[in-house]
């Protein structure tokens, strides 16, 4: 692979060049893919879904019943979000999502997964010690809250609908979306309360 011991940077560059030279890959397509995930597709999409569910009981019901079309109502869908399931956090039950086997993640609503989501530390431990992992990440739940871990072992992709924070009755959907963090939609965080640093 460009000589053993070659750096991963050099191997990546070599592979791209080979694929372009052979006509297998269009350089402009590469740029378009990167631009899509750097600018268009990310957790602000999921935040819109959550904010809508918080403010529109009918939408919330459609999302929890059949998430893929409900998410498509807001214009989101496609690769790595073909088969979506939404799970709702409550005071009784908290949901956390992982892919122990690789890095499955709902791209259309959350974008590309963060490094820690793909790390051995997270993948190994959240299924056996979810409270310990949440503690690492600064989240402490009441002992009475059950934790449901979802291991994405198939093509179903999970979106966590976090609990709506207190003191948000007078916020509109746009303002609410600002409170919905990426981690709150994985279940490794909570939605921010108004005024809390993002």
């Amino acid at each position, binding site marked *: *692979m*460009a000589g053993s011991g070659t750096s*991963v940077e050099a*191997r990546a*560059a*070599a*592979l*791209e*060049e*080979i*694929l372009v030279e*052979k*006509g*297998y*890959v*269009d350089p*402009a*397509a*590469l740029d*378009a*893919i*990167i631009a899509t*995930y750097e600018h268009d597709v990310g957790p602000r999409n999921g935040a819109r879904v959550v904010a809508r569910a918080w403010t529109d009981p009918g939408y919330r019901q459609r999302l929890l019943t059949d998430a893929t079309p409900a998410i498509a109502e807001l214009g989101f869908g*496609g*690769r790595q*979000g*073909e*088969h979506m399931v939404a799970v709702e956090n409550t005071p009784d039950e908290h949901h956390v999502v992982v892919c*122990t*086997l*690789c*890095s499955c993640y709902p791209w259309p609503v959350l974008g*590309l997964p963060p*490094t*820690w989501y793909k*790390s*051995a530390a997270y993948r*190994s*431990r959240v*299924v*056996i*010690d*979810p*409270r310990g992992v949440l503690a*690492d*990440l600064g989240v402490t739940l009441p*002992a009475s*809250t*059950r*934790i449901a*871990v*979802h*291991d994405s*072992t*198939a*093509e*179903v992709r999970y979106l966590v609908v976090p609990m709506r924070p207190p003191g948000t009755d007078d916020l509109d959907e746009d303002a609410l979306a600002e409170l919905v*963090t*990426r*981690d709150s939609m994985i279940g490794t965080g909570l939605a921010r309360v108004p005024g809390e640093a993002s």
Partner: protein
Amino acid sequence: MNGAADLGGMMGFGPVVPEPEGELFHAEWERRVLAVTLAAGAMGRWTIDESRHVRESIPPAEYLTSSYYAIWLRGLEDLLVAHGLVSRDELAAGRAAGPGEPAKVLHAGDVAPALAAGTPYTREMATSARFAAGDRVRTRTMHPRGHTRLPRYARGHTGTVVAVRGGYVLPDRNAHGAGEQPEWLYTVRFDARELWGDDADPTSTVDIDAWESYLEP
């Protein structure tokens, strides 16, 4: 297979280190590997299942010392060689030794529609589902050399079906070019103590998505 990718329940990796929400890449080469992996995949020469199997087949010492985009890079190199699209010599030389074969190329204008369309994995089933929500099921004890999506920690354990998801392409066969052979897919919930023993958190559960052939009554 019981490769290094099957990490659930392993110990010793240290704490989970969080990352700011905006931080997607840590180097330019990571961007390029993401894009090249998606563009090359769009040629349609391999399935997502085969690409996962190639990655889980990376020798464990390499897998566990590689960043995730480095795993993708190694996986893509292996897929291209396995399908005869690029040779090991070309990879070693860092340049093409000759022109490519005719291929379905993803052009820039097709990126948005291709990503928006995705690849549905659901299939119409001619048979009815063997299990229903609420059924108690037991995952099979199995350690195939080939690809599977039943993690080691969830094998040989009893859980409850919480959802019937529909018919889905079976990775265990599709990864090896044996066709889609779709099966009913179920979400199965396990009590943490069933999986991990009496010391586990009694207030937690783990769900997996499991194909019908992973399960017995």
